[in-house]
C-alpha cells in the first residue's frame, strides 16, 4: 500500500470524525436553544385502518379510522399550547373536528391552570388514550367512553385546574374543571357556550402510590344541568372510579360510572345508569414480547325510568378477546373477536383486524 492510499484513508477517517463531532455540536446548540425561553414545537400523528367482519350483514369491509394530528408547543417556560385535530371517515365524507385545544400555564407541579376544549377528565380511558388507537391495547374504546357517547360527556369546554402532590407517598393528584355543559345534542360538548346558563363542574382525585409503581386509582364527580331539545331540563350527577395497573405484564384496567338523572321540575321522575368494564392484557416475555393477548368485558345498564337516556338504546353487554402484535416500534396489528348485545336485541359477533400507527420523532 503506498503512502497516498494510507493518507487518503487517514483523511477519510478524520473527515468522518469531524463530521460526527459537528453533528453533536449541532445537537448541543439545538438543546441549548430549546432550553431557553424560545418557542418549541412538536408534531405527532395517529391513524388506524381496520377490516371488520360482522354476523348477519353484508357490510363487511375496510374502515378508515380516525386520522389525528397533534401539535404541542412550548411558548415559554410556563406556557404550553396543545391542539388535536381529527379527520373521521363517514359514509360519504370526512368530518374534521378540533378534538382538543388547550392553553396551559404551569405555575408549579401543584398548580397548572388551563383553558380550552378537553376530553373530560373523568375516569381513566377518556384522558389516557384520547384519539390514539395505537396507544390503547384494543381496537376500540369501551362503549361507555366511546366517541359520541351519551353516557359520559366525552368533551368539555371550560377551564381546568390540576396539579400533583408528589410530596406524599400516595402520589396524589387532582383536577377540577368548570365550564360549558352538554349541548342540546347531548353527545356533544357546548362548544359555542353553555345552552342553559348552568355551568358544568367536575373534580377528580387520583393516586399513584410510590410503593406500587404502575398502579393508578381515581375517583371523580361530574355535575351539570342538561337541556335536551325534546324534553325538560334534567339534573345530571355522575360518579366515576377506576383502578389501573399500567405495567404491560399484566395490564389491568377496571372502570365504572354511575349517573343519576332527574327532571328539575319533578325530582320524582329519575333514573340511574350503571356502566363498567374490566380489561386484562398481558405482554408476553422474551422472544414473544411483541405479542400481547387481551380480554375485556363491558356492561351498561340504563334504568327504564331514566328521563335522559331511557330511550337511547344504550343497554349493552360485550365480551372481547384479542391479540396485539407490535411488529414495529411505531405500529401495531390487532386481531379481535367481539360478542356484543345492544339493548337486549340479540347477540352479534364480529371480527376486527386493525393496523394502527403513530407518527412521532421520539
Amino acid at each position: 500500500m503506498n503512502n497516498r492510499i494510507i493518507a487518503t484513508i487517514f483523511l477519510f477517517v478524520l473527515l468522518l470524525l469531524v463530521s460526527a463531532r459537528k453533528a453533536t455540536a449541532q445537537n448541543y446548540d439545538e438543546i441549548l436553544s430549546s432550553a431557553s425561553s424560545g418557542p418549541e414545537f412538536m408534531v405527532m400523528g395517529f391513524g388506524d385502518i381496520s377490516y371488520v367482519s360482522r354476523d348477519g350483514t353484508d357490510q363487511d369491509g375496510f374502515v378508515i379510522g380516525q386520522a389525528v394530528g397533534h401539535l404541542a408547543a412550548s411558548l415559554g417556560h410556563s406556557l404550553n399550547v396543545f391542539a388535536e385535530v381529527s379527520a373521521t371517515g363517514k359514509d360519504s365524507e370526512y368530518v374534521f373536528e378540533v378534538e382538543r385545544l388547550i392553553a396551559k400555564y404551569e405555575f408549579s407541579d401543584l398548580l397548572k391552570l388551563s383553558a380550552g376544549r378537553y376530553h373530560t377528565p373523568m375516569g381513566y380511558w377518556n384522558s389516557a388514550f384520547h384519539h390514539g388507537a395505537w396507544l390503547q391495547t384494543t381496537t376500540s374504546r369501551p362503549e361507555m367512553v366511546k366517541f359520541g357517547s351519551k353516557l359520559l360527556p366525552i368533551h368539555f369546554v371550560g377551564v381546568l385546574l390540576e396539579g400533583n402532590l408528589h410530596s406524599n407517598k400516595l402520589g396524589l393528584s387532582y383536577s377540577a374543571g368548570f365550564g360549558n355543559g352538554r349541548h342540546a345534542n347531548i353527545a356533544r360538548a357546548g362548544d359555542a357556550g353553555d345552552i342553559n346558563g348552568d355551568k358544568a363542574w367536575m373534580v377528580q382525585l387520583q393516586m399513584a402510590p410510590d410503593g406500587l409503581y404502575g398502579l393508578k386509582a381515581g375517583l371523580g364527580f361530574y355535575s351539570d344541568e342538561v337541556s335536551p331539545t325534546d324534553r325538560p331540563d334534567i339534573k345530571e350527577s355522575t360518579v366515576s372510579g377506576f383502578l389501573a395497573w399500567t405495567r404491560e405484564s399484566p395490564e389491568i384496567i377496571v372502570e365504572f360510572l354511575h349517573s343519576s338523572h332527574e327532571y328539575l321540575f319533578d325530582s320524582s321522575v329519575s333514573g340511574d345508569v350503571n356502566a363498567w368494564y374490566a380489561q386484562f392484557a398481558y405482554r408476553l416475555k422474551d422472544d414473544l414480547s411483541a405479542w400481547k393477548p387481551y380480554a375485556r368485558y363491558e356492561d351498561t345498564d340504563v334504568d327504564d325510568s331514566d328521563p335522559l337516556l331511557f330511550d337511547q338504546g344504550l343497554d349493552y353487554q360485550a365480551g372481547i378477546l384479542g391479540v396485539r402484535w407490535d411488529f414495529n416500534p411505531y405500529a401495531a396489528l390487532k386481531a379481535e373477536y367481539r360478542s356484543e348485545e345492544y339493548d337486549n336485541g340479540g347477540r352479534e359477533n364480529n371480527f376486527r383486524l386493525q393496523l394502527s400507527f403513530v407518527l412521532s420523532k421520539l
Partner: protein
Amino acid sequence: MKPYLNNRFIEGLRLCLAASLLMIPFVAQAEEPISQTGIAIVVHKDTEADDVSMAELRNIFLANKQFWPNRSRIILLVRAPESDERDYVLNTIYQMDEDSFRKYWIAKMFRAEVPRGPKIVFSSDMTTDLVVAIPGSISFMRADQVSDAVKVLRVDGKLPSDEGYPLK
C-alpha cells in the same frame, strides 16, 4: 529488503503512528461495569436540591414532577439509545424497555402533560457541558466520569461511592 522499499515502509509506518496518536482522544477507553462504578445523578450547580429519594427521582424522570423546589423548571437530559448508561437507567429507574419508554413519552405528550420529550445527549462530555450550561437541568452518567463542574445528587441519602447506593 531493498532500500527504497525500506524507506516507503518506514514512511508508511510513521503515517500510521501519527494517525494512531491523533485517534487516541476518540478511542473509547476500557470501562468498568456500571454495577461497580454506579450511575451518578447530576444537576446544574445552582440547583437547590442535594438529596432525592428514589421515588422522587422516578417522578422527575417520568416528568410527573417538573419543577424544582424554587419553582424553576426541570430540564431532563437522557442518553441516546444503545448506551450502557441509558440501559441501566431504563432498567432501574423507569423499569421499562426501549419500546415501553418510547410509548410512555408519546402518551405523555399526547395527554398534553408535557410539550416535549426528554432532550437527547450522546456522550458523558456532552451531558456535562449541557448540565453546566442549562440551569435546572438533570441527567445521569457513569460515576467515574463526573467532573467538578456539575453537582451530584444523593439518592436516598447516598452518593455513588457509598455502600448501598441504589443506582449501583
